[in-house]
């Protein structure tokens, strides 16, 4: 069943790595502008679910519809284009290119899509302002704090105005105060652009920024909104 109006829907996903089952019939759906937390213990399959939804990993079976299109029928090039222009990514560690300045890092996805350097950096700066890191534009990632670096990474993830933002433990390496600021700004920015956010986390305080949660356990998912 496809929940009406969903932007991204997964149905009965299975994925195994050798003898290890990562997903065992997981379902998922998200609407534009919605923030959905994917929760569960370590090794439950929540990161694998995110990687499948983002087209990084191909499931062994099951269906993933993005904007009504079956992702399995897309070519690798189509999936790559989707990841570059329609999806944004924030991870826990090491996302910024150390040789580039922060503004060059944020502008990078636009440059890869063929935008001129001047235009890309102008757009990048407006996103850096929203994430309150525009004063770091000329610094390199090694010269900024963990919290600041993560906000630069969020600006980079949003610079293409993606329709879906995938965030995998985005505050995992930060202290409470910095984690909170990142979540405040991330969810505010995503909501203002009507982007859907798939938020993988094992922290309840981070999940509290979501609209609803999916619990993944032993590769199976539970949509708590439909149960409660």
């Amino acid at each position, binding site marked *: 069943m496809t929940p009406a109006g969903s932007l991204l829907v997964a149905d009965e996903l299975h994925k195994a790595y050798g003898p290890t089952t990562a997903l065992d019939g997981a379902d998922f759906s998200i609407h534009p502008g919605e923030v959905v937390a994917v929760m569960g*213990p370590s090794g439950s399959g929540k990161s694998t679910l995110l990687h499948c939804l983002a087209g990084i990993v191909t499931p062994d079976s099951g269906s993933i519809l993005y904007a009504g299109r079956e992702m399995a029928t897309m070519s690798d090039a189509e999936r790559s284009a989707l990841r570059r222009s329609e999806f944004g990514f924030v991870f826990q560690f090491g996302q910024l290119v150390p040789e580039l300045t922060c503004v060059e890092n944020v502008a990078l996805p636009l440059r890869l899509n063929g935008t001129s350097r001047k235009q890309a950096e102008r757009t990048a700066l407006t996103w850096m302002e929203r994430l309150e890191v525009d004063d770091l534009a000329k610094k390199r990632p090694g010269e900024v704090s963990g919290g600041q670096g993560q906000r630069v990474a969020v600006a980079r993830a949003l610079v293409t105005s993606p329709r879906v933002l995938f965030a995998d433990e985005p505050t995992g390496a930060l202290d409470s105060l910095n984690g909170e600021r990142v979540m*405040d700004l991330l969810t505010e920015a995503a909501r203002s652009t009507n982007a859907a956010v798939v938020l993988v986390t094992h*922290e*309840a*305080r981070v*999940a*509290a*920024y*979501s*609209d609803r*949660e999916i*619990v993944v*356990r032993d590769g199976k998912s*539970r949509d*708590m909104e439909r*149960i*409660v």
Partner: protein
Amino acid sequence: MCRVVDMSIGHTLLGLLESGPRHGYDLKRAFDEKFGHDRPLHYGQVYSTMSRLLKNGLVEVDGIEAGGGPERKRYAITDAGITDVERWLATPEAPEPYLQSTLYTKVVLALLTHRNAADILDTQRSEHLRMMRILTDRKRKGDLADQLICDHALFHLEADLRWLELTTARLDKLAEAVAK
């Protein structure tokens, strides 16, 4: 919701009087502004508390204003009152171990009666998260005082959630132990 619960109203009002004498109405207003949040004091609570403090020598009447309405007493803290506040502040609160958790009872009962205990834990997690969302939203919109008091509630709910996760992970073992 964010609110001061189980707080010693008497000690708090005494503490507020340390900065200078106030009328009962001013005390209520100061309390509500700083600590009342969702649960403002009733006038009756203020006046009954002040009567008690007066009787115990912790405050004294500093002046009475007669006006068109009822007379208004202005209260001042006494030296004994200041000592009492000091003692209260220096005494640690008893940690609440919650050993008689209703939730634990529900989980064990579910296992004993062959119901789905994981469902109970999942539903509870969802309910906790629902409350955490309300608090998080309130924190985002509130001032620093709101943020601090909501954080206190959030950290406690988070502790519950960690227990829920751990119990979920140990359900099989608990089922075996309960069956013995």
